[in-house]
């Protein structure tokens, strides 16, 4: 996903060096710390639950309407056409995939009630709910799924995220127009049984099915409205909410979907998403009680927020890595010693403690924390346990070996796209490199698309600011980026052994062996220093204490259908 954004999990939080205690996972409003001026006091009832674990009606507010800040204006709401985080936040309410996710994003049955996977992990059979309906009341059958998956991969659709479905048999060939879309490995065995065949085992496949690209679309509506399917009035979905109104640049209003199979358990009746790009403006609307949840918080106001809204601030690790890339195809960065020296001389603690400040976590691996079964210690380089002084010492040695020093300082260009944070961090790193290694760095900031174009061409760049937020919790999400044939390999990393390991891992059915192979690949890649991982992103937002039912998670997905509003 494309963002400089963030969210997370409680357990990961405990591991991290978060600077201040967060009101945390589930926001606890009642702990009034002495000396902290509460901006506003809420009179919230004590939590009580019914026998089946639902919030007791007595504690719920009469009006169940939620107002959420949502970053920029979504490009659209057709789940197959868009790529932004704000877009998918809304789509997650309007649609549901075969596989669903709980408040903590753990996988659970979605439209498929259960599924069987064959022994080598390449054939999935989904048994669909018979009570699943479209939001117009029509029944949903496996034919809807066949149609939807084919539509995503059909090059004529122009789906920017079609790659997500590439593990399915023939998906790549269909995307490349080599095979007709009817050849896709998705088949309706009967009205309520769907078979999906994969090229090779992909343990993360079920999670992929929770991605918006794997949502179903309503055939008759798509055929009638084409590209305008996602507009209010045209959109027929299958999620907990339906699109009631969309005013560009103003708001999106969703109302409860009476045809949703779990509608009886949905508590919030109406939810508004507001596109507010300006974080300072968003904060003000939150303070004026026009928003219940923000999308972000302004970095520059950290001190004020920490002092005044500490209990409403929720920070959690996000499945994303902020890093610097080295264009390995051009001197002086074609010299691995130089890349290693530069990587070692970055003092990550200073960056997270003094510059970013919201609890970002210094990192030494490319794959961010959060992948179950992945051994991060096996990937962690040896120098990660050294002190910064030791790292600097080693870095100076390496630079001297490469022929740079006080009499021959290394000139270097750091490129980043125009943004306050990138500027701060680039300046910080440039000064660390200057102080420790005598590097004379020039900072170049570029407008985003110019920056992207330059990065992709690899003929102009040296050091580049990069960031990546994974679409699903699997290392390949990251490691594939540095495959020599990947179009996004902006650092021009080219190691045949690394490529071979990734290709090998893609065919391994045994999950343990697969992770081990990926660990080996990542360790090998990190030791070549094409990138310098800096920190793990965090999600950070303000949430009113009366909004409950959500949980921090590494994907930063918060479905409104699980939330409820307390009396306040």
């Amino acid at each position, binding site marked *: 996903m494309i963002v400089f954004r963030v969210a997370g999990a409680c357990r990961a939080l405990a591991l991290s060096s978060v600077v201040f205690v967060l009101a945390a996972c589930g926001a606890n409003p009642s702990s009034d710390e002495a000396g902290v001026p509460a901006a506003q006091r809420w009179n919230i009832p004590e939590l009580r639950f019914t026998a089946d674990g639902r919030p007791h009606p007595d504690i719920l507010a009469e009006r169940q309407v939620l107002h959420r800040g949502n970053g920029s204006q979504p*490009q659209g709401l057709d789940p197959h056409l868009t790529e932004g985080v704000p877009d998918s936040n809304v789509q997650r309410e309007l649609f549901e995939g075969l596989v669903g996710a709980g408040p903590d994003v753990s996988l659970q049955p979605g439209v498929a009630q259960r599924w069987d996977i064959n022994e080598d992990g390449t054939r999935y059979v989904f048994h669909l709910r018979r009570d699943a309906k479209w939001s117009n009341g029509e029944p949903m059958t496996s034919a809807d799924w066949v149609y939807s998956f084919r539509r995503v991969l059909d090059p004529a659709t*122009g789906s*920017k995220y079609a790659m997500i479905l590439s593990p399915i048999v023939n998906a790549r060939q269909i995307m490349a*127009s080599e095979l007709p879309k009817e050849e896709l490995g998705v088949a309706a065995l009967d009205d309520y049984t769907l078979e999906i065949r994969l090229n090779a085992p992909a343990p993360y496949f079920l999670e992929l099915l929770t991605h918006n690209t794997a949502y179903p679309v309503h055939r008759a509506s798509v055929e009638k409205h084409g590209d305008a399917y996602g507009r209010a009035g045209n959109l027929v979905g299958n999620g907990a909410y339906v699109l009631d109104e969309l005013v*560009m*640049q103003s708001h999106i209003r969703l109302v409860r979907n009476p045809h949703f199979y779990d509608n009886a358990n949905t508590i919030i009746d109406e939810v508004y998403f507001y596109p507010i790009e300006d974080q300072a403006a968003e904060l003000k609307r939150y303070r*004026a009680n026009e928003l219940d949840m923000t999308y972000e918080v302004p970095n520059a106001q950290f001190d004020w927020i920490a002092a005044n809204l500490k209990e409403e601030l929720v920070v959690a690790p996000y499945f994303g890595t902020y890093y610097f890339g080295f264009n390995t195809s051009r001197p002086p960065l074609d010299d691995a010693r130089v890349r290693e020296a530069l990587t070692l001389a970055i003092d990550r603690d200073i960056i997270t403690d003094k510059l970013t400040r919201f609890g970002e976590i210094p990192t030494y691996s490319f794959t961010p924390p959060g992948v179950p079964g992945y051994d991060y210690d096996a990937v962690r380089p040896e120098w990660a346990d050294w002190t910064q002084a030791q790292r600097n010492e080693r870095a100076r040695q390496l630079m001297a070996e490469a022929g740079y020093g006080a009499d021959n300082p290394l000139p270097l260009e750091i490129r980043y796209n125009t943004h306050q944070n990138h500027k701060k961090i680039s300046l910080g790193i440039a000064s660390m490199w200057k102080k420790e290694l005598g590097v004379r760095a020039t900072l170049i900031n570029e407008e985003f*698309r110019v920056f992207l174009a330059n990065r992709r061409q690899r003929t102009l760049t040296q050091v580049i600011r990069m960031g990546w937020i994974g679409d699903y919790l699997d290392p390949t999400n990251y490691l594939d980026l540095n495959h020599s044939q990947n179009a996004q390999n902006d650092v021009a990393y080219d190691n045949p052994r690394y490529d071979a390991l990734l290709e090998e891992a893609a065919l391994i059915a045994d999950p343990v062996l697969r992770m081990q192979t990926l660990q080996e690949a990542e360790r090998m890649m990190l030791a070549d220093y094409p990138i310098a991982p800096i920190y793990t992103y965090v999600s950070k937002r303000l949430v009113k204490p009366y909004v409950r039912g959500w949980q921090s998670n590494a994907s930063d997905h918060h479905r409104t259908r699980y939330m409820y509003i307390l009396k306040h």
Partner: protein
Amino acid sequence: MLARYLFQRLLAAIPTLFILLTLAFFMIRLAPGGPFDGDKALPAEIQANLDAKYHLDEPLPKQYLRYLGMILKGDLGPSFQYREYTVGELIGQGFPISLKLGMSALALALLLGIPIGSIAAWRQNTRTDYLLMGAAMTGIAIPNFVLAPLLVLFFAIYMGWLPAGGWNDGALPNMILPVVALALPYMAYVARLTRGSMVETLRSDYIRTARAKGLPEWKVLAKHALKPALLPVVSYLGPAAAAIITGSVVIEQIFGLPGMGRYFVQGALNRDYTLVMGVVIFIGVLIVVFNLIVDLLYALLDPRIRY
């Protein structure tokens, strides 16, 4: 005569708009990157299909001619960024809001700016004059991205009287802060312009005559001096009206208003070629129209001008 004048003026605007369109078309395409670039690299086939769908795979001159043809038919094309909408729809939705906002702000600026300027001129070089003009200078000097958040902080957060943002179909409470924030710099400028020309006018012979006739001072001011003194203000109105309607990007961002101003900036950043072009042409036409209105107003105010 008037009809003929109007016709001539509009005819003369065509080459201007044509040059504007041509320059904008090639300049936005010179910018590196394309509308479908993102952090995530697109598979070649999908990129090719998107390009073909929007005719971006054709040679530039051909695209240009295609675009000219579309414009002649009044079609601004589909937005690349918001694929569910056409550029015409986006402008059609945003313009009425920008218009309402801009015109309200302009009305407020004139309603307060002209009296302030007149009083300052009338009391030239007195404490009143200095006070009013000092305030006007401050108004011009404080950019609205500073002023607007302060207004929100005070009226929406501390006092809780007005909403901090949102459009709400143009309800009055939602309009007040953005209109005031938008109007203040213009009001200050109008006040200065009015004062300047009023000071000139008050020195002219016919004002002396009017006073000599024994007319009461308010009549001298309101009836004789004001009309000619307003000429510079009126000529400022044309560009100001166009700027206030299209250039309220900052105010739209801060208050979360769904006007058309943002499309200009977003369109350029996203390389949404058709959206940028649509907005450029629309603004071009708007400026032509407003300048024309100003010229007509001149004739009303200045008896020496006739068309």
